[in-house]
């Protein structure tokens, strides 16, 4: 339409003329291009024939990958946590096997093969270079090796491959921080970079083994071997050595970890201990646990299901994935928020009849003392007392005055409600609620009563043990905040701690909070006073109890009446020595009933750590 306005008519003759000229040009282009292709093939096939002919003959020279040794993992004192030890597996070189299906059947008669062994083998078979050995069964026993040796002549292409594989000398002790390596799965085979994993059997599945996979893995090498027509290796021609993976040295302390796990006994729960001045993680316990060696060896489907479906969830890493209401452990932060907002000072007092009511509402918000003593902590309560004795009424009142967004803004600086960035995968976010958060996730408006409950760490609030330990470390250093990290050295290179924006507060406010937390342990009526006997140093801490089930209005929580799994979780956060902290920790005992069960664990760990320090 556009064109018609130009008063130009379609000039068919000219069009045809132009077209025909262009076609001649294209004919020339096609001829020249195809001719140059012909020239290229002429060069390859005639001019350089000799070169490629020899190369083709020499293709009986096979490129074989050599897998690099995986980097070792040590604790801070050089104790070996992840080792490599010899390991025998059955591999097949398909080119050497006359009848692969028959060979497979024969192998099946001789030794046990699972379905996963076979499907992983078939998957791997599709992606390999010629003459690459493909693993069929890992972890052969002595007797199986003997059986295969006897029947060797019936099994062309079948070989027993000896190589190094992961071994965790400490068994289950570090499984939740180290994770484990396992056989490369079918799905992973599809996704992996084909070159780096040539010839590899294992890959880091969870924990540090997964997070630092690229560092630990090293670089695959290869060798050219000349074989005869049957694929028997005659000699090695060229060899590029693999580069071993780098060793890792962790902040973890093996003996501290042992003490912590022993102190927790058979209880379910988690403990994280941090060096507050670097964010280095000294101990990370999640119980129950599992033995990573089982996964390296090639765990059976049945056994795996048994572990995975266990009600106690041994595979679940409570320390970083577990989310619990922080309960009263959050109170120091709420108190600090009040001080910094100028809403309270050391002398501000609140009347405590054992319950609290919002103006104009009938609902009673109870203090935990109401059931036991029938009244509150004291007629009037100040900040120090409120933290030391864990008074709820004081914090109901403070929370109301701070408002939910005030709490969210200030307490958020301690890293609650967001991932700490610890260097293992799968960390949980936790929740630090706000009005906006509720609107976006649950829908609906925020109610003033909900603010009160957030003030004592209940309601929607959720935190992981790593977040709580980090929280304790931030209080210990008066606001310095580090990203918690497990790995201290990669090879010889130090991993420097990453420091984040500090929590800014007045010195006097920190003093007040620290003193109140000291009173928790050392005060006459402190909620953790049972811990103070025989303490050679000062500990600052805060107890907490997390409700597992809601208690209806007008009812009391009765510890004896509720089922075991509905009992409250016991929490404790602490740092020591209080004047110059070198350790900060968080303990959580699931269904422990109250925070009292967490105290002996914390004491044992701090004792061990400070004793060790004094010795060193």
């Amino acid at each position: 339409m556009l064109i018609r306005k130009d008063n130009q008519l379609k000039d068919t003759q000219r069009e045809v003329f132009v077209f025909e000229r262009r076609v001649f040009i294209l004919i020339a282009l096609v001829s020249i291009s195809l001719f140059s292709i012909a020239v290229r093939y002429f060069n390859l096939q005639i001019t350089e024939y000799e070169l490629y002919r020899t190369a083709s003959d020499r293709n009986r020279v096979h490129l074989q990958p050599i897998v690099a040794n995986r980097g070792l993992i040590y604790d801070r004192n050089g104790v070996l946590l992840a080792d490599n030890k010899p390991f025998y597996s059955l591999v097949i070189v398909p080119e050497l096997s006359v009848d692969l299906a028959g060979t497979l059947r024969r192998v099946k008669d001789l030794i046990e093969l699972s379905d996963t062994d076979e499907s992983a083998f078939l998957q791997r078979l599709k992606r390999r270079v010629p003459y690459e050995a493909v693993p069929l069964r890992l972890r052969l026993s002595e007797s199986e090796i003997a059986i295969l040796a006897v029947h060797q002549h019936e099994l062309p292409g079948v070989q027993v491959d000896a190589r190094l594989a992961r071994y965790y000398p400490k068994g289950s002790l570090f499984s939740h921080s180290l994770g484990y390596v396992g056989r490369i799965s079918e799905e992973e085979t599809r996704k992996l970079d084909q070159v780096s994993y040539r010839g590899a059997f294992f890959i880091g599945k969870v924990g540090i083994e997964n997070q630092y996979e690229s560092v630990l893995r090293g670089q695959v090498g290869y060798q050219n071997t000349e074989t005869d027509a049957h694929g028997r290796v005659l000699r090695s021609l060229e060899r590029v050595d693999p580069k071993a993976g780098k060793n890792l040295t962790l902040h973890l302390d093996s003996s501290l970890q042992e003490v912590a796990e022993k102190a927790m006994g058979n209880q379910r729960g988690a403990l994280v201990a941090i060096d507050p001045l670097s964010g280095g993680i000294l101990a990370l316990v999640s119980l129950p646990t599992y033995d990573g060696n089982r996964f390296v060896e090639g765990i059976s489907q049945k056994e795996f299901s048994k572990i995975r479906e266990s009600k106690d969830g041994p595979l679940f890493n409570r320390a970083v994935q577990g989310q619990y209401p922080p309960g009263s452990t959050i109170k120091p932060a709420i108190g600090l928020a009040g001080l910094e907002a100028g809403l309270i000072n050391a002398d501000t007092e609140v009347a405590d009849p054992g319950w609290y009511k919002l103006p104009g509402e009938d609902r009673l918000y109870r203090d935990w003392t109401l059931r036991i003593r029938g009244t509150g902590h004291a007629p009037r309560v100040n900040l120090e007392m409120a933290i030391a004795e864990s008074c709820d009424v004081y914090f109901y009142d403070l929370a109301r005055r701070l408002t939910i967004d005030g709490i969210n803004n200030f307490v958020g600086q301690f890293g609650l409600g967001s991932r700490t960035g610890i260097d293992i995968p799968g960390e949980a976010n936790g929740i630090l609620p706000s009005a906006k958060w509720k609107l976006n996730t649950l829908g609906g408006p925020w109610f003033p009563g909900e603010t009160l409950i957030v003030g004592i760490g209940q309601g929607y609030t959720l935190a992981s043990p790593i977040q709580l330990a980090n929280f304790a470390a931030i209080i210990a250093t008066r606001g310095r905040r580090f990203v918690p990290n497990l790995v201290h050295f990669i090879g010889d290179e130090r991993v420097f701690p990453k420091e984040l924006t500090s929590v800014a507060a007045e010195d006097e406010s920190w003093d007040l909070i620290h003193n109140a937390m000291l009173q928790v342990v050392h005060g006459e009526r402190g909620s953790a006073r049972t811990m103070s006997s025989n303490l050679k140093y000062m500990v600052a801490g805060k107890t907490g109890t997390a409700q597992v089930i809601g208690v209806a209005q007008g009812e009391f929580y009765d510890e004896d009446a509720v089922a075991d799994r509905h009992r409250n979780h016991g929490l404790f956060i602490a740092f020591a020595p209080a004047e110059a902290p070198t350790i900060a920790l968080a303990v959580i005992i699931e269904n422990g009933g109250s925070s009292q069960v967490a105290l002996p664990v914390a004491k044992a760990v701090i004792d061990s750590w400070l004793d060790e320090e004094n010795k060193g």
Partner: protein
Amino acid sequence: MQDVQRQLPLERKSTSSRFDVTKILNIDLPIMLIVLMLTVYGSVVLYSASGKDLDLLFRQFKFYLLGYVVMVFSANIPINWYARWSPLLYSVGVLLLFAVFFFGDGAKGAQRWLKIGDFRFQPSELIKLVLPMFVGLYLSKQILPPRLPNLVLCLLVILVPTILILLQPDLGTSILVFSSSAFVLFMAGIGWWYVSGAFVSLALGSIPLWLYVLKDYQKQRILTLLDPESDKLGAGWNIIQSKTAIGSGGWSGKGWLAGTQSQLDFLPESQTDFIIAVLAEEFGLRGVLILLILYLFLILRGLWIAFHAESSFGRLLAGGIAMTFFIYVFVNMGMVAGLLPVVGVPLPLFSLGGTSVVTLLFSIGILMAVGGDKRVFGK
């Protein structure tokens, strides 16, 4: 004078035999013969490349058969029909490409498939057929050579599907789709200034392409082209092995089923994109030249049909199809011989693969329809 020549075939029509099957079915005999030879030749090589897998060969036969039926069918559709439906088909194709972009089914890190129930479909195959058709139609409605505004619109029509395919990412198909339509534009007579401008902007455009669009594996293939030895275990492996296969074939080849490279599985993708290496190893340069000559004849015959077509649309359509074959052959044979980077382009009518065989034969049918147009539907 040219017009007079164009009338001549019409005269011939009345005198030709009534029982000539090729005339009744509107089959172009030279093309039919070349295509038959190509498919027979392809089957022979495929049998060897597959390690004497008869099942696989039968599956391919079924596709050849289906392809021939489709070809006869498309040869008998009046080209006006293609003109009428190409805008709709183009729109559907582009919509499907968007669908792939958002809901596609991935394989090897690329999203190319659209899955509806058990049926998987590659919309880029449809676009391959329809885009040159639609561009040809659009241009044939304009006064040629086209003016700048029309040209810009045309480029838009070409670039939208090209970029969608590039993002899948499928570099091979996007090159194919783009260049076949570019050839249509060229035949429509766009000015040399535009042609040279296109080359310059293509060169400049490849910089952001390299930086932002190309995936690591695609870059690796281009880098490997420059130095295959640098990556012996990875991408370089394919090129080293295919060059060895080709070179060791010599003039007369190692003989059918006797290529050590192919038979010992050193050659990757030997049944699909790299099948020419099997041919070169087992039949030598002789075999390669025969194949090249077959392709050359096919392309030249296509251009001949374009040259003699009645309508402007027919000319551009036939020319576009002929040049599509040329791009296929050039890119595939070039990449296997290490001249061009490895992009996924099959050797037409040779490589294993159902969809590609059927669509190629479909377009051959269209070529025949254009060829028959002056006789049957000419005006």
